[in-house]
C-alpha cells in the first residue's frame, strides 16, 4: 500500500529545509523499498514546527515536526509511514494540535491541506463551488451577496467590499478591471503569500467572481517581486485554470469571459497603496493619485476598477459557496467573518491564526503565540504593519474589531502582529518608522517626503538628549501635519507608530546626555 506523506512547498517551510526533508524521505523510502507518495502541500502556518511532515492514516493526518533531513532514518525506524506516534518529533493528529484546532479557518480552509496546484482533486475540497454558484447569478445579485456577508477589505482599510463592487457594477458597461493587490509589504504579514503559495485557485476563483459581479473581463494581480515563489505558483495556477476552462473566453462553459494577467512589482512598498499600484500597472512610477476620483470610477487606464487585496478576494468563494449568512455568523459588531492574523517577530509560536473578529490580542499573543521567543518579558507589539500603532501590555485585552482598534488609536490593518520583548528601544523604533517612510515615500507630497526626513532627524536629537521636551513637541506637531496633509496612508499613518511609542513608552524618549565616562 502506498503511504501518502505531506511536506510543504511553502517558501517559509523551504527556508528552513523542507526540500531537503522531502528528498531525504524519498531517498530513505527507496533504500528501504517502501512505496511512498510525497505531496508538496502549502503550509499549515505553524512555522515553529516547520518543516512539518504529515502522514495520512485512517484516523486522519498525523504530524511530525520540526523535521530535519537527519531525522528521517529514525522517523522511518519509529514507524513514520504508519503514523506511529513513538518518536520525539511526533505531534499526533494535525487537526488536534491546539494552535490549529482552536482556529476558524474559512479563507485558509485548504491552505496546508492540499497540493496547491492539483486542480483535478480541488472539487473534493469544495474548490470552484463559489464560482459555479456565481455563474448562476447576475452581477447585481453577486454584489448584494458580498454586501450582505459584511465582508470588508482585508488589506487594512476595511472598506465594505460589497459597496465597492456595486459602485463598479453601476458604472456604464465597457472596459472594467479587477485588480488584486498582492503587494503585501508590511513587516509581520505573510498571509497573502501563504494563500498564493498554498491555495492559488481560491484567489483566482475570487477574482473571476468579482469579474462576473461587476462586468469586468480582465483581471490583474500585482505581486511584489520579493515573493518569487508566489509569483511562480500563481502563474502556474492561472495556466492550469485556463487549460481547464475556468479562465479565458468561456469560463465553465458559461460563454462569459475572464482573463487573468500576473504582474510583478519592483521593490517599492508604496505600490501597496491602491492608486500607486494602478500607476505601476500602467508602467509608470508608483506615485499616488489624488482622490477623488476613486478607482471604482476612474481606475486602471482610467476605467472603473475593483481594487481588493488577496485575502478579500480569496474569501469571496466561501461566501458564494456557503452563503452570506454563514459568513456573517462569525465576528463582532461591524467586523464580520474571520480575520487571518499573523504572529511574527519575537514570538515562540509564530504563524497564521484565522479566527473570527473579537479574539483578543492576549489570546493571540499568549495562547496561540506562547509569548516571546526569547523567553524575556513582553514589552510591545506593533499591530497592522509598519504604519500601525504599537500596543503595550495594558492593551492586550483589546478585542480585534476595526472600530474598537480605531477607538484606541490603533489599527488592525492586515492583521500582522509583531512582538517585541523588553530589550526593544522604542525611541529607535520611532526613528525607524520615520526612516522607513523616508526610504519608501513616493515623493509626491511634501508632508510625507520632507516630514519623514525631519522626523527622523528630530528623533535622533531626542535620542542624543538635545532639547528633549521641545523636540518631543516638534515631533508631535510634525506628526499632525503629516497625518492631515499627506496624500495617502504612507505619510498619513507614519505618525501612528511614532506617536504610540511616545505615548506608551515615554521612558525611552527621556534620555539625558551621558556623563563623560572618565
Amino acid at each position, binding site marked *: 500500500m502506498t503511504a501518502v506523506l505531506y511536506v510543504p512547498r511553502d517558501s517559509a517551510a523551504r527556508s528552513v529545509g523542507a526540500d531537503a526533508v522531502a528528498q531525504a524521505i524519498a531517498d530513505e523510502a527507496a533504500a528501504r523499498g517502501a512505496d511512498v507518495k510525497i505531496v508538496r502541500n502549502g503550509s499549515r502556518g505553524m512555522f515553529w514546527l516547520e518543516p512539518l511532515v504529515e502522514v495520512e492514516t485512517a484516523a486522519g493526518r498525523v504530524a511530525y515536526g520540526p523535521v530535519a533531513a537527519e531525522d528521517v532514518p529514525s522517523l522511518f525506524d519509529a514507524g513514520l509511514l504508519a503514523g506511529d506516534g513513538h518518536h520525539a518529533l511526533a505531534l499526533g493528529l494535525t487537526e488536534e494540535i491546539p494552535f490549529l484546532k482552536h482556529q476558524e479557518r474559512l479563507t485558509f480552509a485548504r491552505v496546508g491541506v492540499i497540493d496547491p496546484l492539483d486542480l483535478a482533486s480541488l472539487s473534493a475540497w469544495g474548490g470552484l463551488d463559489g464560482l459555479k454558484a456565481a455563474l448562476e447569478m447576475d452581477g447585481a445579485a453577486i454584489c448584494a451577496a458580498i454586501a450582505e456577508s459584511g465582508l470588508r477589505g482585508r488589506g487594512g482599510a476595511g472598506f465594505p467590499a460589497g459597496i465597492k463592487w456595486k459602485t463598479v457594477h453601476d458604472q456604464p458597461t465597457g472596459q472594467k478591471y479587477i485588480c488584486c493587490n498582492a503587494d503585501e509589504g508590511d513587516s509581520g504579514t505573510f498571509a497573502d503569500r501563504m494563500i498564493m503559495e498554498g491555495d492559488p485557485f481560491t484567489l483566482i476563483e475570487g477574482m473571476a467572481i468579482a469579474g462576473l459581479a461587476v462586468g469586468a473581463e480582465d483581471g490583474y494581480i500585482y505581486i511584489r517581486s520579493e515573493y518569487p515563489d508566489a509569483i511562480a505558483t500563481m502563474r502556474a495556477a492561472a495556466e492550469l485554470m485556463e487549460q481547464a476552462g475556468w479562465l479565458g473566453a468561456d469560463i465553465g462553459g458559461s460563454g462569459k469571459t475572464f482573463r487573468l494577467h500576473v504582474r510583478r512589482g*519592483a521593490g517599492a512598498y508604496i505600490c501597496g497603496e491602491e492608486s500607486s499600484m494602478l500607476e505601476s500597472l500602467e508602467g509608470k512610477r*508608483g506615485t499616488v493619485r489624488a482622490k477623488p476620483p476613486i478607482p471604482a470610477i476612474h481606475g486602471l487606464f482610467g476605467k472603473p476598477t475593483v481594487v481588493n487585496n488577496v485575502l478579500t478576494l480569496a474569501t469571496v468563494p466561501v461566501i458564494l459557496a456557503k452563503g452570506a449568512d454563514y459568513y456573517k455568523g462569525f465576528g463582532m459588531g461591524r467586523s464580520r467573518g474571520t480575520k487571518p492574523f499573523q504572529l511574527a*517577530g519575537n514570538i515562540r509560536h509564530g504563524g497564521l491564526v484565522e479566527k473570527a473578529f473579537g479574539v483578543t490580542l492576549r489570546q493571540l499573543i499568549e495562547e496561540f503565540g506562547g509569548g516571546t521567543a526569547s523567553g524575556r518579558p513582553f514589552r510591545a507589539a506593533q499591530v497592522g504593519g509598519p504604519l500601525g500603532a504599537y500596543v503595550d501590555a495594558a492593551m492586550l485585552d483589546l478585542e480585534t474589531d476595526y472600530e474598537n482598534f480605531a477607538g484606541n488609536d490603533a489599527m488592525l490593518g492586515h492583521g500582522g502582529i509583531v512582538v517585541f520583548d523588553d530589550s526593544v528601544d522604542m525611541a529607535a523604533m520611532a526613528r525607524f518608522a520615520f526612516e522607513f517612510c523616508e526610504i519608501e515615500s513616493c515623493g509626491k507630497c511634501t508632508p510625507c517626503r520632507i516630514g519623514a526626513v525631519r522626523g527622523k532627524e528630530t528623533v535622533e536629537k531626542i535620542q542624543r538628549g538635545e532639547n528633549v521636551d521641545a523636540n518631543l513637541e516638534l515631533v508631535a506637531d510634525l506628526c499632525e501635519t503629516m497625518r492631515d496633509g499627506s496624500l495617502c496612508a504612507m505619510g498619513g499613518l507614519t505618525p501612528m507608530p511614532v506617536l504610540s511609542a511616545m505615548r506608551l513608552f515615554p521612558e525611552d524618549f527621556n534620555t539625558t546626555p551621558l556623563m563623560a565616562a572618565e
Partner: protein
Amino acid sequence: MIEAENAPPPAGAVAEATAICARHGNDPAALLEILHDLQEETGFVPEATLPAIASALNLSRAEVHGVVSFYHDYRRAPAGPVVVKLCRAEACQSMGALALIETVCAARGIKLGGTSEDGVTIEPVYCLGNCALAPAAMVNGRLVGRADAARLDTAVREARS
C-alpha cells in the same frame, strides 16, 4: 552625477532591450516587466538601453529613466554573482536583524549595499514575508529563515555551486 554610477553596457544589450520590448508588444504598460526581463538577461539595466526602450514604447527617455530610478529592484551596475538580501523591517529587528547585518557586513569587509571581493553583494530589504521565522534573508532568490551568520555562509556556498 547619476551617469558616474552607471556601468558600460554589455555587447548587444541595446538590441536585446529592443527585442524584449517587441516580445511585450511594445506595450508601455509592460515597462516594469520589460525592465525585469532585461535585468535578468544582462544583470542590470544599462543606461545605454534607455533610449531604445523609450523609442520602442513611444515614451520619453525621461519617463523611462523615471521608472528605472523609482523602483529599488533595478540596478544600474551589475551586482556580484551572489546577492544576499537581509531584511531590516520590524519583525526581523525584533529578532536581532540589525546586529546580524552588522556581523555579516563586517565579516566581508563591506558596507550594506556593497559587494565584497569574493563577489557577494549584501543589500537591505524590507520584508520577505518570512516574519515568523525571523531574521529573514534571501540568497539569490532563495529564502533563508532563522538566519544567522553560519546559515548564511552555507547558503552563499550553495548559491555558488
